[in-house]
């Protein structure tokens, strides 16, 4: 696996920074969530690339890390946590500095709900393996319309959920868990699936806010050690 140390944009952590290792693939939007969050929390980490294009996720070495063969996975000393939501909740509890969950209970639940809309109701339905399956069974046109329909359904729901509370970011003027999930999802929707974002004014506006953040830019797929042109 390709390895590199990554220091996030803001290095203001206390003594003895954690020795975190992130197993990631540059194009994986789930890995992207964790990269973005680690940057926002100012947590340095070692980047270990897992090449999903050549099946490295099925290697015996990675099987021990995550038997589900997905990235991201985070190693923190002896503990390995896989699954982006699990990793982010773990990071929130273990490293509460620069919290990604608001204190206000109403905002907390909204953030969890928005994160789960992305995590359970949008992204899993346009994963590469799922789309390949759809294409094999129904053809490439069906593949495109399936992906577009699932993303747009989710985005319409997010617009309704967030429009009364969104500010600079999804749930106000501070960046939180929902943003960590939304930023990669919107980016992928635009770049990979040509979603027309003019239908989603709230999501478009907050995406512009993400694009102004060095922590987000630093987490972009094309800036990762394993990015290929």
């Amino acid at each position, binding site marked *: 696996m390709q390895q590199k140390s990554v220091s996030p944009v803001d290095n203001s952590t206390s003594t003895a920074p954690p020795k975190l290792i992130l197993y990631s693939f540059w194009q994986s939007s789930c890995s992207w969530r964790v990269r973005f969050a680690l940057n926002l929390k100012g947590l340095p980490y070692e980047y270990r690339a897992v090449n999903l294009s050549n099946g490295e996720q099925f290697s015996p070495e990675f099987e021990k890390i995550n038997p589900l063969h997905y990235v991201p996975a985070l190693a923190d000393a002896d503990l390995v*946590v896989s699954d982006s939501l699990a990793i982010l909740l773990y990071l929130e509890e273990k490293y509460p500095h620069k919290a990604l969950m608001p204190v206000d209970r109403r905002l*907390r639940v909204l953030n969890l709900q928005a994160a*789960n809309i992305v*995590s359970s109701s949008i992204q899993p*339905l346009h994963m590469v393996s799922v789309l390949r399956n759809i294409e094999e069974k129904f053809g490439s046109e069906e593949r495109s319309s399936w992906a577009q329909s699932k993303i747009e359904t989710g985005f319409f729901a997010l617009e309704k959920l967030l429009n009364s509370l969104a500010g600079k970011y999804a749930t106000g003027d501070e960046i939180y868990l929902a943003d960590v999930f939304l930023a990669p999802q919107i980016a992928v929707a635009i770049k990979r699936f040509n979603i027309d974002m003019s239908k989603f004014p709230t999501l478009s506006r907050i995406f512009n806010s993400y694009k102004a953040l060095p922590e987000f830019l630093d987490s972009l797929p094309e800036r990762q050690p394993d990015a290929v042109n």
Partner: protein
Amino acid sequence: MTIAYKRNFPTLTINNVSTYYLLAAEAMSIHPFPLCFIMATGGHGAREEAEPKKLKLYSYWLSSCSCRVRIGLDLKGLEYEYVAVNFPEGEQQTPEFLKLNPMGYVPVLVDGDIVLADSFAILLYLDEKFPQHPLLPKDSVRRAINFQAANVISSSIQPRQLMLQHMREKLGPQEAIACAQDDLRTGFAALEKLLKDYAGRYATGNEVFLVDLFLAPQIHAAITRFKVEMDEFPLLSRLFEAYMELPAFQDNMPGKQPDTPAEHRV
């Protein structure tokens, strides 16, 4: 919509007994020690009586996601109004329901003026607000495993069923079931590996935690709806038997809900 009330009497288990007597002692301004004798003899009404009846759960009998939350509410001894959403009649797509959850999914929890959808989010909310019968272990390793395994089910296994309707329309019911079985087997094989070093009587030890609330409905659906053979999953099979011995699990399975059709009622 069918409406019913569910009154859950909290089960005294290792998870909750210390919480109960400490809370009751605090309420009565006495030392907790004498109370433990009262609690041990079954006087577990203090916390439950204090809870106002304001929780409402929008649910569908067959929904495994709703089942997770029904179990959680039961374990915590929380009374709630059960509002059935009739999926075959498309009630989940009515403007009224879409105002509650723009995704058109159950479950949805209403707690006063908080409206919350998504089972994972609902259960974490309930666990924060109602600490009796905690749904997460104190140990950070087991907490992480609970989040991970619950989300494996929530994001990698159950959502595949959203493709089922599509498959059924295009390829026919048998092909659709075969696809669902493959997806379930792949997910279950991974859960067997993930949980084998942590499981005790239940998935992450000898107490019921979050992941058990996700596993039970998923395994139940796999067996009853998709006819998955569970012999190749010895750990999940054993866990399922343990769940079915608990009233909080049994009573909240699809066959026993207010909106369960007569032909499916257990």
